């Protein structure tokens, strides 16, 4: 109810603005020379209207996803790092480093990056070069300044990086870091990720950044649906499986060492296990029937999955090596897509078609206390937020003949069953998966014309596309 209470005032505001517009139109019809004043009034009304429209979007932080908490985001200036040697490799690595650092901070949702057009001509690459007055007053008016330099020498890249609180001229240094690695693009990217994570950790309420997290997904770009992985920003995409069949539903284990997925084998759909450390598929028992959508418990000791080995598809539980396999739900309809409460490990959300169109249910991890969470439409693909408070899901709220019915990503407060819609009018959206920081959601969307992986902040903002080649689906974000 609280969410609805929030929406209502903004609707009233919109109504007032419409009234004002109507007045403007009336003035227009009566006045002998109405054009300029009505136009001005109309423009003013329109701008005010836009301003009010902007409020509900920003105020979705009311649901406390963590994106944009603290109301005022820290204004952070990040001038490009400078080369401190004349090595020819400097230019390429510098560009990779600067682009990666900027993107990480821009996508983090915890800082407001000061546009580079406000920066002075002379930007620092060493602490001695920082002129506080230039940065802490308009036009940059920054609270924080990240700067540094990058050097390539003898096949090694060295980065010196600082974060300064430029309003605190007495003791400005928040971070001072030095990184060294082999002089490769990948290393430059990793160093940028590490530094970005340090900044986000300091400025984002102590929640670790996600710049070094990974996203696992399904891609058909090699001719078959195989399991792929990439960095959280879409770089470094690489194929993990080469089974030449159909592989789906990748789920990385909490410690990042193993990846469970389902694959069409000679004996039907089975859950397979891929070892990230060994870079190959390792042994896992075949259960028989159709086995789908494995899900790791947050302590990594159990797997929930959907199996039809007893007839209908039900949610089953096994230990991490496939032993002690037993059903949790019984006999009432196709049950798939289990998702653990990532904080407590005590509840499992899942999808069931027991009453017709699929709906989201939750139950205790021992199969008791089933509850239906969605009230209507076509609801699938639940995924629990790291803080255990929210589910994201893919939902076609209005479903049936004559209903255009787009599948969109929603956020539901599990305790109250209140929900907000995160995506709007952009093709079919499905398989949302939370980032470990609880601020970001990755999902698949057909908004670009074909299925691709997209990412957004948990309030629906900062939407951007991560994959562009082939069809890509079912993203699954690593746990850290």
């Amino acid at each position, binding site marked *: 109810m609280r969410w609805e209470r929030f929406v209502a005032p903004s609707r009233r505001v919109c109504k007032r603005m419409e009234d004002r517009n109507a007045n403007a139109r009336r003035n227009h019809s009566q006045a002998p020379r109405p054009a300029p004043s009505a136009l001005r009034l109309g423009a003013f009304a329109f701008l005010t209207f836009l301003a009010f429209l902007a409020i509900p979007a920003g105020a979705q932080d009311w649901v406390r996803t963590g994106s944009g908490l603290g109301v005022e985001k820290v204004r952070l200036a990040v001038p490009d790092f400078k080369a401190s040697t004349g090595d020819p490799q400097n230019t390429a690595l510098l560009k990779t480093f600067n682009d990666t650092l900027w993107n990480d901070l821009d996508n983090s949702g915890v800082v407001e990056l000061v546009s580079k057009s406000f920066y002075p001509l002379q930007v620092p690459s060493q602490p001695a070069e920082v002129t506080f007055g230039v940065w802490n007053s308009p036009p940059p008016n920054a609270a924080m300044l990240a700067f540094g330099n990058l050097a390539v020498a003898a096949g090694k890249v060295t980065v010196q990086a600082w974060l300064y609180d430029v309003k605190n001229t007495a003791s400005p240094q928040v971070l001072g870091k030095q990184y060294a690695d082999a002089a490769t693009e990948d290393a430059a990217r990793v160093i940028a990720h590490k530094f970005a994570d340090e900044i986000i950790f300091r400025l984002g309420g102590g929640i670790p950044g996600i710049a070094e997290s990974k996203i696992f997904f399904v891609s058909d770009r090699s001719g078959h649906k195989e399991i792929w992985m990439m960095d959280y920003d879409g770089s470094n995409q690489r194929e993990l499986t080469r089974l030449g069949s159909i592989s789906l539903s990748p789920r990385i284990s909490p410690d990042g060492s193993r990846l469970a997925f389902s694959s069409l084998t000679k004996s039907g759909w089975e859950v397979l296990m891929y070892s990230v450390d060994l870079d190959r598929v390792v042994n896992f028992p075949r259960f028989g029937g159709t086995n789908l959508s494995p899900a790791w418990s947050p302590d990594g000791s159990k797997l929930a999955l959907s199996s039809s080995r007893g007839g*209908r598809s039900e949610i089953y539980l096994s230990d991490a090596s496939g032993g002690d396999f037993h059903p949790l739900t019984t006999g009432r309809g196709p049950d798939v*897509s289990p998702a653990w409460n990532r904080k407590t490990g005590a509840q499992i959300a899942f999808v069931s078609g027991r009453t017709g169109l*699929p709906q989201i249910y939750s139950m205790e991890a021992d199969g008791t206390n089933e509850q239906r969470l969605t009230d209507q439409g076509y609801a699938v693909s639940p995924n629990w937020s790291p803080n255990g408070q929210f589910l994201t899901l893919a939902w076609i709220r209005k479903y049936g003949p004559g209903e255009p019915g787009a599948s969109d990503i929603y956020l539901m407060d599990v305790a109250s069953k209140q929900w907000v819609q995160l995506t709007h009018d952009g093709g079919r959206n499905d398989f949302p998966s939370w980032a470990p920081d609880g601020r970001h959601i990755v999902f698949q969307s057909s908004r670009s014309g074909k299925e691709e992986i997209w990412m957004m902040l948990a309030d629906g903002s900062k939407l951007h596309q991560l994959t562009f080649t082939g069809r890509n689906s079912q993203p699954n974000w690593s746990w850290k």
Partner: protein
Amino acid sequence: MKTNQWQHRNTNPSNLPLTLQGTLKALATIIALCAVMMLGACHKKTAPPPPPPPPPSVPAPTASISVSPDTVQKGQTSTLNWQTSGATDVSIDGIGAVQASGSQQVSPADSTTYHLVAKGAGGTQEATTRLTVTQPPQPMQATSSPSDEDLFGHSVKDIYFEYDKSDIRPDQQASMQSDVSFLSQHPNINFTVEGHCDDRGSTEYNLALGDQRASSVRTALTSAGISASRIKTISYGKEKPFCMEDNEACWQQNRRGHFVYQK
């Protein structure tokens, strides 16, 4: 405003003659074109008429030919009938010279057109008729009998489902019964039932739904006496659609239990 009016008055008169000229030009072109076309037509009319036929001194011969029945299977016979009058020389292609009128049994291997020519003092008359010869159906027990796989492919019908449903709907019972009778007559055939879904739903749920569809078909078969050991089931969800368009006709094609012969 005054300036505008002035321009308005001024521009109009200068525009009018231009428009008139244009119209005149167009008219002239049309007239010229019409003239050319009429000339062409007149030229055809001036062609000399064909000379009138000479008055006949003797009446021309008449001829007719028919075949009954006009369609036979290969190996069967049909009867050819013909009548002529005023002819001295009557022949049928492929048969040779014949009586002025008569009938004859024919049994050609292939479809044949019989062409009769009657020549007389008054001229020549022709008539034709056609006999269609069909190939007899291949006997079932012939040496080239179709394989079990072909029979299976021709005889077993897929079962179609309602949206988001996995129960066998009433209009599919006829297909189900014919499948059951074929499969019980061919107890050596093993097969797979594939469950398919249209592509509107979600990947994971559709795989479970497809599994349930394949299971319903298997259950219907086993309860009708087909041994479960002959039946494998597999779900393809929406992974292998039969049809890729976004409309109900296509979606219906994709919501099915599909039978596949197992070698």
